[in-house]
């Protein structure tokens, strides 16, 4: 039996009368690369916020690396890494300092801190830039530093909310190259959201398509394409089939402007 690292049961979040996440049930295996797709407002970010203990669920439960998100939040926080959609490293500190503060906050043993930081910088291809202010980094370097920062403590699950938004194809490939190595070396489970279907297709072991707060479809890319019947379907057709037309998609003004701001900062 495979080891389940993330188990979501009837997880629900309401904002007033609006149900953002509606009785979501899902499990993710250890070491899996799991992609969560869906149009804006489908509930992807709300789901990630609940799983990372940033937002309490209205009802339902989830266990991350064996810890309950509602009653063992600190256990969950120790076991996960989180790369938010927006830029989450500090531009007025150097790359090295951004890593050092997290090494200290996650209680890495004092003797190991320097070695881990050096390794993380090297792993993400940032060794030469560790001493520079992050404000001078390119978008791809910022994302790689964020991943280095959130994996310094070797989390079992890494949550990434649109990790490649606003990046050019070369920077995007570099980010994925490092994420794939991360899983190969440390067995880190990757749980991420994206709008780029080709990225989901090439990187994910399994994909869930969310629509109106529920899982509309779940499986490997091949399974999803076969589910439409008739053969020869692309993931894009699958997406439109399950998530509806992109034109009626939701997403508040705040979500959309935040996303554009992130893209602008990184791009």
């Amino acid at each position, binding site marked *: 039996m495979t080891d389940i690292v993330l188990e979501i049961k009837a997880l629900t979040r309401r904002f007033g009368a609006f149900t953002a996440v509606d009785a979501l049930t899902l499990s993710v295996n250890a070491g899996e690369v799991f992609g969560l797709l869906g149009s804006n407002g489908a509930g992807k970010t709300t789901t990630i*916020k609940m799983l*990372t*203990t*940033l*937002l309490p669920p209205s009802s339902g439960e989830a266990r991350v690396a064996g810890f309950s998100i509602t009653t063992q939040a*600190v256990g969950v*926080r*120790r076991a*996960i890494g*989180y*790369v*938010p*959609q*927006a*830029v*989450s*490293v*500090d531009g*007025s*500190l150097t790359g090295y*300092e951004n890593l050092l*503060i*997290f090494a*200290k*906050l*996650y*209680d890495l043993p004092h003797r190991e801190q320097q070695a881990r930081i050096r390794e993380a910088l090297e792993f993400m291809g940032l060794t030469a830039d560790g001493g520079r*202010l992050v404000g001078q980094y390119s978008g791809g370097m910022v994302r790689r530093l964020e991943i280095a*920062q*959130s994996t310094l403590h070797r989390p079992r699950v890494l949550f990434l909310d649109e990790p490649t938004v606003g990046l050019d194809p070369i920077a995007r490939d570099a980010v994925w190259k490092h994420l794939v190595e991360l899983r190969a070396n440390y067995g880190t489970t990757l749980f991420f959201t994206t709008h780029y279907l080709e990225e989901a297709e090439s990187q994910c072991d399994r994909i869930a398509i969310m629509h109106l707060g529920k899982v509309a479809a779940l499986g490997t890319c091949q399974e999803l394409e076969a589910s439409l019947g008739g053969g020869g379907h692309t993931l894009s057709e699958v997406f439109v089939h399950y998530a509806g037309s992109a034109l009626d998609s939701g997403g508040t003004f705040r979500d959309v402007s*935040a996303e554009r*701001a992130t893209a602008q900062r990184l791009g």
Partner: protein
Amino acid sequence: MTAAFIYPLTGLIEKTFVITEFELRKLRHDFTELITRALQPALWLLIFGQVFSRSGAMHTGNLPYLDFIAPGILAQSVLFVAIFYGINVIWERDLGIVQKFLASPTPRAALVLGKGFSAGIRTLSQAGIVYSLSLLLGVKLNWSPLALLNVLIIVVLAATLFSTFSLVIACIVKTRERFMGVGQVLTMPLFFASNAIYPTDIMPSWLKTISHLNPLTYVVDALRTFMLAGSTSTFGLGHDYAVILLTTTILVFIGARLYPRLAS
């Protein structure tokens, strides 16, 4: 049982200093701020202070008026710098920084208090400015090392208090525009309803009552006692310290409760 109680406490203190350390590291590239902040206390002491000192309109007992307001202006500049500190938190929220710290196992109180302390240490430069101006204007200062140490401690504590208050407001209003509005509305009443530039004795009784509920009044009283040669405390120094520490503790507690709201 003691171990279970002590570990969270040492963890809290340790993490508070980690946050403070990195907030202060950001200062290295931020020196213009220190210079622009010197302007306001200079205006208050050199213009307002000098004019009112000549007019003799204020009855400040045995203290010359300039001596009387020097500690008040120090307290005021600490308040004005600290009260807008929360804007940084809103900025960090619009980026993803707050969210990332909240997803880490750091105690919430350490995130709040660490930022407060760093604001406290940042405002120490204001003490340097007000002391230099006071020296220039012939204010009779108390140079005993113990008194100076107490002034530094009170400046740090007062800035921690008001920056934590500011952070609490930021957690409630969440946007820069609303925050600036609320900040503007709060600073002047806090300043005028205190003993910073006139004694509470000459206030109408309703204002006097409000001023006694205002933590700034106790900050000014303590600063005035330690800064000036031959000044005595109105409320008692123990009372001043108790009010400042208790208010800060309550605000840190509220801040730690509200801080997670920034991520949702």
